[in-house]
């Protein structure tokens, strides 16, 4: 364990320092709100990046997992008297099982097929949430109760900031360990050449399923946290557009870069706030970022910049 811990102490320490320095920069509740949303997005993106960047599989339905987590946290405590933490875990387990059930048959196929299956699944989830008005409140959404942890209600921007900051740190630590473990190396091999990896004795299929399930569970947990934090959720959380936004964050930050995912999530959470006065152009900017990054910086912003800096220093 200590071996794993020491893998990337510099990066993790920096992340911790940035999170700890947050309150120096964040001046009001709105700033905290943006920072917390960025943190939640970053958690989802780290998981999604393991899938896209390391395992080379795309999901166009992660918003569906996010929304299932969110609705589990909204419905279970309210209707069935679950403890909020229990609801969060139940949501995560259900999403994990669902992801497992989808991944097993689909990941045997190649190329676009996971994209299609996850897309279809995400849309089905959003339609079900829309239609089941009696349970989900339908398109108008439903309110969500408070999150209690260890007998304490998590309330106030500062409490949420520290909670999300801590969880983001843990997620990053987990992901870095995964990436630099034998599993991560196997995944890299999968991305490079599946056949070569298989020939080397890597159980390609097993790892792909593992990463898919892990990323779905992360999305679900993030969804649960978001629901409690926001206090209100609508089926739009499951929308295709939301899935695309998550993919965009990963792509912009850089595939196969954990730091990139955090940067991508932060930039694309803050950017709409900066463009708030130009709502007509938000979609244009968003689309152009997606295309531009993929065409000009196919490795994403962070890895490309890092490479340039490395070259200059070398």
């Amino acid at each position: 364990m200590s071996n794993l811990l020491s893998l990337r102490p510099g990066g993790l320490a920096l992340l911790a320092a940035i999170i700890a320095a947050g309150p120096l920069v964040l001046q009001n509740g709105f700033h905290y709100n943006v920072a917390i949303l960025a943190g939640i997005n970053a958690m989802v993106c780290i998981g999604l990046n393991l899938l896209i960047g390391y395992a080379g599989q795309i999901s166009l339905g992660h918003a569906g997992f996010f929304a299932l987590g969110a609705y589990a946290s909204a419905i279970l405590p309210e209707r069935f008297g679950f403890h909020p933490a229990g609801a969060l875990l139940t949501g995560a387990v259900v999403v994990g099982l669902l992801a497992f059930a989808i991944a097993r048959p689909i990941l045997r196929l190649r190329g676009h097929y996971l994209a299609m299956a996850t897309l279809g699944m995400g849309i089905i989830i959003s339609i079900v949430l829309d239609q089941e008005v009696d349970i989900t409140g339908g398109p108008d959404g439903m309110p969500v109760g408070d999150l209690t942890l260890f007998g304490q209600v998590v309330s106030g921007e500062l409490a949420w900031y520290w909670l999300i900051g801590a969880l983001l740190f843990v997620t990053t630590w987990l992901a870095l360990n995964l990436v630099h473990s034998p599993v991560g190396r196997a995944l890299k091999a999968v991305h490079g050449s599946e056949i070569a990896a298989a020939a080397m004795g890597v159980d390609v299929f097993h790892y792909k399923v593992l990463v898919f399930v892990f990323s779905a569970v992360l999305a679900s947990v993030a969804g649960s946290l978001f629901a409690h934090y926001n206090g209100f959720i609508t089926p739009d959380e499951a929308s295709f557009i939301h899935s695309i936004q998550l993919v965009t964050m990963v792509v912009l930050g850089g595939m196969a870069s954990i730091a990139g995912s955090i940067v991508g999530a932060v930039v694309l959470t803050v950017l709409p706030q900066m463009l708030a006065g130009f709502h007509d152009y938000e979609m244009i900017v968003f689309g152009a970022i997606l295309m531009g990054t993929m065409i000009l910086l196919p490795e994403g912003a962070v890895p490309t910049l890092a490479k340039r800096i490395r070259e200059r220093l070398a």
Partner: protein
Amino acid sequence: MRFFRKLTRRAALAMAGVAALTLAHAGTALAGDAKEPIKIGSFLAVTGPASFLGDPELKTLQLYIGKINKEGGVLGRPLKLVHYDAQHLAKKAVTFTRRLIEQDKVDLIIGGSTTGTTMAVVKLVERAQIPFISLAGASVIIDPVKKWVFKTPHTDRLAVRKIFSDMKKRGLSKLGLLSGSGGFDKSCAGNARKLAKDYGITIVADETHGKGDTDMTPQLTRIKNTPGVQAFLYCGFGAPTSIVARNFKQLGMKIPHYQSHGSASMKFIKGAQGGAEGVRLPVAALLVAEQLPDDNPQKKVALAYKRAYESAYNDSVSTFGGHAYDALMIAVNAIRRAGTTDKAKVRDAIEQTKNYIGADGIYNMSPTDHLGLDEKSFVMVEVRNGTWKLLK
């Protein structure tokens, strides 16, 4: 290892840069002029699927805030509109409302084009204790009454009541219902189911259609073939209203056809390409301002708003813009009566709004009624020769 450290340092720089930019941006927003304007915050669905609501609403706010400022403002201070486009998304509505309250420090909020975005921020405005006037339809917004939350549009319940009264008058009691999958559609259809009994109406067919659907003939065929059906009601808004009207005509259906106030826009008639002839719906008097009798107190207000809007934007007036007009005027009147922008006093003044004659009707608010409109504020119209005809 060194590589990763550099990489994360880069990330930190980028994040710090972004944060600095946001702050700079915020700084310019805060640097108001010396006269200390009264800040009206708003978040509307200007883009996205509900943009047909937010677009006229925002245009109306901009138009009238400009007018009021030209006439010297309110309490000698100019009005300043701080607007963000929250689309139909609850998440954006929450973030922008926080921004309006905590960063822009607005004095009052008008907004929430849709019920979802409105309900998402109710907790927030109640906690921040800031007057909030919603432009969304559903009755849950003001029922139960929430201390700081008001709204100006007629509720779908009022619309359904108006339609059912008209049906009763014509001796129709067996209704075929079709609704879309949006929040408005569902709430309207839900009220129709709830209220039917009060009017001796039975719903003999109850159909729905999905988002972005382009053909409603299967649902309409089922309604057409339901034995005994005497009238048809469609609850929905946007493009489907026209498609339903066209499909209805295509199937040769002859029973009386009602739609909700969600169809109260010329775009409905134009889109239906003749299919809208004979459709009846409850609308705000605004749409038929010219046809109102001269002694109707609303006539002057409605005509003035209609002319101002249509000449400024070269676009036909819709009731949605009317909601924004009424919300702004109620807010401005309240601030004038309170003589201050103190939030609690403005809230009390809004609640005391009496006999305000607006585009949507005559408002009489009270501690138990944060809408203040009744069924009379709706008029029944029928589409004839491609335009609205006021029914007596």
